[in-house]
């Protein structure tokens, strides 16, 4: 137990010595402090760290001022409200798809409506066009809408 306590105390002394040495190097007052044999090699590392990081040399004032202006501009850009303009891309896509569907259905109904069908077996769900024709028209309309959607996405 006593041995452990002595080691702990020795470690604490060593920790304090390295910390004080660091403070002295960073304050530029190493002349007043003599590193012990144990910390001499640590002193070299601490000095080199200070040289690499060079905390005493502040950023160039011109650079600081220029960066401050740049950041001010960036900050102002950030504050601009995100104004949604109409029509936006999404709206254009939806309107385009709806228009395509309506157009195809309209053309189909128009042309099938111009033919007078006297066939009583051609049961219709939509006026003068048969159910089959309506399904085909619907598929064509949806396909056309899909093409419109695909083309509008590619334009982005």
């Amino acid at each position, binding site marked *: 137990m006593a041995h452990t306590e002595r080691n702990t105390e020795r*470690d604490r002394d060593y920790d304090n010595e390295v910390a004080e040495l660091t403070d002295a190097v960073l304050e530029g007052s190493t002349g007043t402090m003599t590193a012990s044999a144990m910390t001499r090699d640590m002193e070299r*590392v*601490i000095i080199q760290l200070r040289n*690499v990081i060079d*905390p005493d040399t502040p*950023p160039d004032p011109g650079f600081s001022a220029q960066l*401050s202006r740049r950041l001010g501009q960036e900050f102002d850009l950030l504050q601009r409200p995100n104004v949604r303009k109409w029509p936006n891309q999404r709206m254009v896509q939806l309107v385009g798809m709806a228009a395509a569907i309506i157009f195809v259905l309209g053309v189909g109904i128009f042309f099938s409506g111009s033919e007078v069908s006297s066939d009583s077996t051609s049961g219709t769900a939509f006026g003068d066009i048969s159910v089959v024709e309506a399904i085909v028209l619907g598929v064509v309309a949806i396909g056309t809408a899909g093409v419109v959607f695909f083309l509008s996405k590619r334009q982005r």
Partner: protein
Amino acid sequence: MNRDASDEQLASLAQQGDKEAFLALYNRYLPKVHNRVKSRVPPQDAEDVTQEAFVAVVRSLPKFERRAKFNTWLYTIVNRQIADYYRRRGKGGNPGGEVSLEDVEHTARAGLYETDSLDERGLIQKALYTLPEHYQEIILLRFADGLSFQEIAEQRGQSLDAVKSLYRRAIESLRDQVGGTIN
């Protein structure tokens, strides 16, 4: 602007559109960020990387979560910008923000350091970034951020003895890495 405002208070004000609060944070952290960048990139590129880091900070400001510590968040962005710096030079780099030993060695050999400081500067930079993260951080808190050991202890919520012990072990580890190559 209240100079005693905490980083988190200033960040919160900045998020609400207070430009002066953001610039107060910038002035407070510019020297520290610049020092941290200097410890990891060639000196002639330190200003560029510092600038990129702060631009990334202002653009990411809306994403800062107020319950987090501002400096931790800030330094994460700085580390990412340093990693991007090495990646842009085609040296690879870990997307997580760590700079590999090969990156620093390659940059050093490519002559991006001033030739007369390549040996010691490169060695220390190389050795520093092979240290475990908690060793790197304690060294950067003291050297780059200029915090006293007492301030570091308060920031980390540790005892002064614990901080000094961690610091001593970090320096020992660094000394072991560079060996006898430093004069």
